[in-house]
């Protein structure tokens, strides 16, 4: 059931950037000391179950809360709990000093013949392994791991669209595996989510992989699998774009795909689920791609969750330059102070780019062999050279000239150039709601390519915040109109 590619508006293809991760996997092993955050992926912090001085083994649950929606937190190394931080670099955390062993006990009850296991056991394995927490918002199980239950899931989307500037290599994620294991992961999800249709979404270059995966699914008797091709444009990998493009559904802006009964996961999360169930492997590590010209080598590293970045980066960073380290995405990621930060359950890439405090002389007259631009005013738009990234703003702040580049690329079809003028002038009222300012998904693409270097997305966020403060947030109505799931009676 190959479906035709859906029309997606806007977006921008970040092509040919220098500093892509190399297709090589380095097993980094267990770190000496790990600091594991207790508030994974912006959820409410969970209560620690261990005490200072207690010995924990890798894969053991060290924090869990079954009353609120969330997933357990696992120890990622064998060792002793050294400290329980109320307020670490990023919220409460447990510090564990490793005993130096790399071993990890498999989960109880797993089976390579997972098909014989009941849904109950499958869900338990997914939950206890922490694998259900490897996706923002969680993967639904009967253990309150996501806002909805598994029976409410209508669609499962596996997305491998390489839409970012730097994308982890799919071949590294699949190293030592075959597509059969991807199919297994999908089949496991299909078994516990009986109503759900499965969708594989990739770019054009992933077409072959997707059709092979579909074949593998058919071989194990999974026939409700569709595959879709989207252009590898940013931000086509985001749920706000995927849901309308693949499922033809309106996205409930301000909520998550899960509220529509849609689970979206990437390849790494799917394989972690599969490994938990079929190999009993707890989700205690992440494959993190190193990207950007700030690294001397850019392999993918298999890192235990909680590994301090400082330790990882030391051997790969180019120390001769001033660098900025960014997590996951250059467009939306946070700047990481790598002395304080550790690897978390959602980390997929570390990007190091030069801090360029002084741009080159006579910038406007340069041919730009390596300069990326939406406008085609640089040679790089016409020759196949790789493009470079640095943090300089490459220009001066000016008033908007209405070049409408932002309107052309906006993935949700709003008019950033118009909305920012209202916010700048302080005219923040219902008009902005009517102009669909709340559809903005904060992808920052408009800010990226503004000719006048106006922080459009930031201004629109300011507008949205003011409107919310005035009580003009239209989200409340969305819950009823789109019959969203995952709300208690009193909330809805």
């Amino acid at each position, binding site marked *: 059931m190959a479906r035709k590619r859906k029309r997606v508006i806007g977006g921008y293809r970040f092509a040919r950037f220098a500093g892509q991760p190399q297709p090589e996997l380095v097993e980094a092993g267990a770190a000496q000391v790990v600091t594991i955050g207790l508030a994974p992926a912006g959820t409410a912090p969970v209560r620690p179950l261990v005490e200072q001085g207690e010995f924990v083994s890798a894969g053991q649950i060290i924090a869990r809360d079954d009353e609120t929606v969330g997933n357990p937190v696992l120890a990622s190394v064998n060792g002793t709990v050294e400290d329980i931080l109320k307020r670490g670099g990023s919220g409460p955390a447990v510090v564990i000093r490793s005993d130096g062993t790399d071993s990890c006990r498999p989960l109880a009850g797993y089976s390579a013949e997972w098909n014989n296991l009941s849904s109950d056991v499958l869900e338990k394995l997914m939950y206890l392994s922490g694998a259900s927490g490897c996706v923002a918002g969680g993967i639904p199980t009967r253990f309150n791991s996501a806002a909805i239950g598994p029976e409410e899931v209508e669609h499962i989307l596996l997305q491998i669209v390489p839409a970012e500037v730097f994308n982890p290599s799919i071949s590294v994620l699949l190293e030592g595996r075959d597509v059969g294991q991807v199919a297994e992961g999908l089949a496991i999800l299909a078994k516990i989510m009986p109503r759900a249709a499965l969708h594989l979404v990739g770019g054009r270059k992933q077409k072959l992989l997707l059709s092979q995966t579909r074949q593998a699914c058919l071989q194990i008797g999974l026939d409700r699998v569709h595959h879709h091709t989207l252009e590898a444009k940013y931000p086509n990998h985001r749920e706000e774009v995927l849901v309308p493009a693949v499922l033809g559904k309106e996205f409930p802006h301000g909520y998550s795909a899960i509220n529509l009964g849609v689970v979206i996961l990437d390849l790494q999360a799917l394989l972690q689920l599969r490994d938990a169930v079929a190999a009993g492997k707890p989700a205690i590590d992440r494959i993190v791609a190193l990207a950007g010209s700030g690294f001397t080598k850019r392999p993918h590293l298999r890192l235990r969750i909680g590994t301090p970045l400082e330790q990882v980066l030391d051997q790969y960073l180019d120390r001769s330059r001033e660098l900025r380290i960014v997590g996951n995405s*250059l467009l939306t990621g946070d700047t990481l102070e790598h002395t304080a930060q550790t690897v978390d359950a959602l980390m997929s890439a570390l990007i190091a780019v030069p801090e360029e405090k002084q741009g080159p002389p006579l910038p406007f007259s340069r041919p730009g062999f390596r300069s990326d631009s939406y406008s085609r005013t640089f040679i790089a738009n016409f020759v196949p050279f790789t493009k470079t990234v640095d943090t300089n703003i490459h220009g001066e702040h000016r008033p*908007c*000239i209405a070049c409408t580049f932002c309107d052309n690329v906006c993935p949700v079809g709003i008019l950033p150039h118009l909305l920012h003028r209202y916010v700048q002038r302080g005219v923040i009222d219902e008009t902005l709601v009517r102009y669909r300012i709340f559809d903005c998904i904060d992808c920052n693409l408009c800010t990226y390519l503004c000719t006048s270097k106006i922080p459009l997305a930031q201004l629109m966020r300011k507008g949205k915040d003011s409107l919310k403060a005035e009580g003009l947030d239209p989200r409340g109505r969305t819950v009823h109109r789109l019959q969203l799931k995952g709300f208690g009676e009193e909330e809805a």
Partner: protein
Amino acid sequence: MKIVRSLFEGLKKARPLRPVKPVIETLEGILLGSPETTAGAPHFLDHIEIKRYMSTVIAAMIPTTVAAVVFFGWFVLAMILCSYVVGGIIEVLFALIRKKEIEEGFLVTGLIFPLVLPPTTPLWVVAVGIAFGVFFGKEVFGGTGRNIFNPALVGRIFITIAFPEIMSATWRAPFSDVITAATPLAVYRSTQGAAPYLDLLLGQVAGSTGEVFRIGIIAGALLLMVTRVSSWRITLSYLASVALFAFVGHSLGPQTFAPPLFQLLSGGLLFGAVFMATDPVTSPATKPGKFIFGTMCGIITVLIRTFSGFTEGVMFSIVFMNAFSPLIDNTIVNLKYRP
């Protein structure tokens, strides 16, 4: 490079130079790269900037500018210099008053203006025109990005009305010192005789300095469209509507309407449709709005050329439609985002 950088640092700090700080900052911006880095996500930005954007427009005008100098002599260069100097002074004065950097939009205005004047325009008229255009067409509205009318056209219309004898009676053909007093459009109106299309394309006819070398304008148009700097929607809808309206008109009344191809290749139409109607600040921003704008410009141009006392209607049509741009945009946006 370091020396230049520290020189600018020193100049910016010098107390006596404080009143001209915007000028220093502008020079620094031109010579040196930006000293600013992104504050957070997005961590890197597109290399496009206003200077690059405006430079691309100027690059697109190079063929027709060079042709103007070749065809009409060094005097054209003097007109361009005069326009840049006088307009530049006003621009700098306003930058100083506003304490903001000098805006790059002037680079384009200062070049467009002499290119839409007859090659015999006295320099003092050039000076008066650009001064009026920059002052009343742009600065009084608050500078580039806030103006309603195309500043070059405001200046052109002002001197057309103020000095009609200079602006309409003294045309000159390329490579000739003879004052012919008749552009192809004027000739057509009196004799119904169309100039040869090849002469029109190559600019071997009388006309404004920059409008005659039409091959060069077409090359510039291609550059602007390929680089995404100007909107093909406006240019093509403008030309298409002129062609269509002229075709219909010429079929019904061949005595009244000039033939479509002649209309396309004569007067300031190509120059206007490529370099002036597409000014992003003064044209609609919405896509349907651009089509409406271009189409209306075309209809008005043909109407003026055919029925008014003026032989050419491009500048009036563009300025007239400039006034409607906000209304067009507003209507389109309100239709798109209905309550």
